[in-house]
């Protein structure tokens, strides 16, 4: 019987250096070889954002179990790219959730500023890591990192759709 595990090539974070970061790609040295225009993709963007798979064009270079173990400079460059590729505002406070024409209109404060968006009733999902995702009618996702740490009013409003 073939071994499933052998299908995944794990990369050692100590042997990876990010050399350059652009909008959605990086130049990276992997095990002594330099690759340009590499896209770091998150296979589990919400539940395990620390895991990355590096793609050079169609070629899969390997899986990085936790990019946070990269050296400080590489990590900073990597996070700059990831923050664009995976732009997900984090909700800090919920001002209101109102019913507008069959949809729920949320007015919230996020780490990126105030925003108003609409959702359907089934829009909040609890992830195994305790984080919540809220998906709006346009498919955009927002995080609630630690629901218990929201203020009481925000918690009450959130519980309506949880």
């Amino acid at each position, binding site marked *: 019987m073939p071994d*499933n595990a052998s299908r*995944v090539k*794990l990369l050692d974070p100590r042997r990876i250096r990010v050399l350059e970061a652009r909008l959605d790609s990086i130049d990276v040295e992997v095990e002594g070889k330099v690759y340009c225009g590499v896209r770091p993709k998150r296979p*589990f963007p919400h539940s*395990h954002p620390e895991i990355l798979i590096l793609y050079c064009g169609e070629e899969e270079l390997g899986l990085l179990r936790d990019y946070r173990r990269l050296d400080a400079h590489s990590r900073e460059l990597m996070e700059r790219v990831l923050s664009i590729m995976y732009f997900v505002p984090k909700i800090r406070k919920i001002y209101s959730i109102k019913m507008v024409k069959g949809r729920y209109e949320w007015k919230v404060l996020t780490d990126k500023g105030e925003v108003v968006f609409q959702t359907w009733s089934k829009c909040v999902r609890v992830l195994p890591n305790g984080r919540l995702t809220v998906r709006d009618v346009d498919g955009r996702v927002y995080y609630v990192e630690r629901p218990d740490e929201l203020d009481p009013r925000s918690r009450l409003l959130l519980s309506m759709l949880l």
Partner: protein
Amino acid sequence: MGDGDEDSSINIYPSREELPPLIAEILDEDEEVVAVAKTDLVGSSYGEEEVVLTNRRLMVLNEKIEICLKLSEIKMASLHSYVNTCVMSIDTIEGPRSLVAFTKARLKAFESLVALINNMAVGKIPYKLLKQHLLSRKELESRRDASSRVLLRLLRALRPAWPLLVTAIAVSVAVRLVGLVPPYLLKILVDEILIPRANIDKLAYVALGLLAVNIVRTILNTINSYLNTRLNVSIANTLRFRVFSKLQELSLSHYDKFTSGSLFSRVVDDVNRIQWFMTGSFAMLFINTSMIAFIGITLVTLSPQLTAIALTPIPVAVLGSTIYRRLASKYYHKLWRRWSKVISVVSDAINGAILIKSFGKEPEIGYKFSESLSEFEKAQLEVFKFEQKIWPAVGFAFTVSNILVWWLGGTQVLEERMTLGSLTAFTSYMWMFYTPIFNLVENVKSMQIAAVAASRIFEILDLDPGIEERPNAKDLCLKGDVEFDNVWFTYDGVHYALKGVSLRLRAGERIGLVGPSGSGKTTLIKLLLHLYEPQVGAIRIDGIDLRDLKTSSLKRQAAIVLQNPVLVDATIAENIALGKEGASPEEIIAAAKAARAHEFIMRLPEAYDTEVGTRGSRLSGGERARIALAAALLKDPRILVLDEPTAALDALTEDEVTEELERLTRGRTTIIIAHRLSTLRFVDRIVVMDKGMVVEEGSHDQLIKREGLYRKLWEAQLRGLVRVNQVSVSGRHAR
């Protein structure tokens, strides 16, 4: 147990003693009746004949034996359908013969009878087996009606909630008793203060008494509300959990018997009705009884004569409630069946959304929904009309008695045989007396509703799970040697999907299972995975009967990928991880890579965290198939069953997946069901099934040489390919 009143279905008699005398006396010593069906025509006139199927012969009786055929003479039984009537015919060795005619009201019974005759005479299925299945189905149906002591059972089932229930009832009784004090204070006020215009100091006590009563009542009411809220949640959760757990325990055969709407309705609506009864009406039974006792004593103390008049309408109320109890369940059963149908249509419309939209069936489903709603409305009106025949008459009797009390009481006050305060208190108490009586009558209604709801819930709780795991079942590490030993299986007790299948797979062997639709391939694998149990024969893995193997052990080491896999409404990662509890992200990715799913998953913006939607509706059939395959592979099963694994894939992907399957299945006992015979190019052996039986076995080359069913299937596929080529060639020429 002959169901004389249910002639529309076939009649079964468990023992000779229960047979109708006419049938019993014509039987030979060792002859046994399998089933009886009654016609409703004799020739072209209304009348009744009985068609009796025994283990030896088939007879038509009309006071005497009209026709008698030995089973050995029968080649085939069949039905011929006309405008309103049907005729049952028998092909005998001497030629065809029409036996009886009947209207379509009896069609169901005769369809079953014909299937039984063919199973016995043609299929050679042992009659004892057939009869045993029919009896077990009958028993299940009869159990549905046995709801006489259902409320007592309900109480027993709610044992954990008893302390809370008793406390809530005690507090409720206390609230009502405190409410009896104000009319007594009113009597004191009228007789001792207002009329004599004296005892002014007592007025303050009366006022303070009223205030105290209200304060106590408010406190008790708050406690009462709190207890009732807790009781509500406790009862609903206890019942829902029991029903839900039972549903998880049941074999798939039970899911075939109920619509999804009907099951939803039991978990949601019936539990609500019981919850409403237990926290409302059941407590009110005690409250009302104690109120009737207390107020009754007070009334007799005030005026025995007026009390006698006040009691006169009670027999009318008792009579009304008795009639109601006798008839109400019929009306309410009907009402809820209609409601289940409404829910069923909604649930089908949601679950089958893709199918309905792709076929443009929205108007039809809309019509079906409005039809079910209007049927529900009709049933509701019938309940209303039925209730209107009883309750207004009961109400009128109370009104008459009330007028009499006023007239007689008024006369006694004028003649100074009774004080005004006593009459005022009496009339206040009398209304307080009627209210619990009326409530008690209402309690009977809700008791009836709860009894029906409880019987529907017990119908589920009483079901035999259908899958037998013997007490000493073992948890084993399997090698994967599989044996089907003379396996017979029927879903409905009449039509056999598998007829004596014997098949052996060595550990690690890969076989292809082919055959026309309905030949029994999928049934065979469902039995192997212990989703159903064969009625005859055994299935063994590594020489151990499936019933001696822990279900959990089998489920851990065997996996299936269905033809149209249904995913759960979760993320892709969660769907793949169903194959192994606590699977790491790397394991999930590795399994997806093995199933050729990783590439398309990583193209999705949210990759493995993408939500697949209800039943996986946001993905294509091919994508769903690959995710299901990944889940199966994550399990690393010893036994792998693939039901049409490439059916939803395009030709290129099919080729890739087939190649991959060849590697993935190496060393695993594998059964692959395939209509596309090209998928089976790597299997060790091909097994051909037809009409529930294994008809051919061998390699591709051996089967082609044999010129049997496999060769026909192969040639039909080749012809199809040639036709496709011709179309594409002529298309190119036309361009």
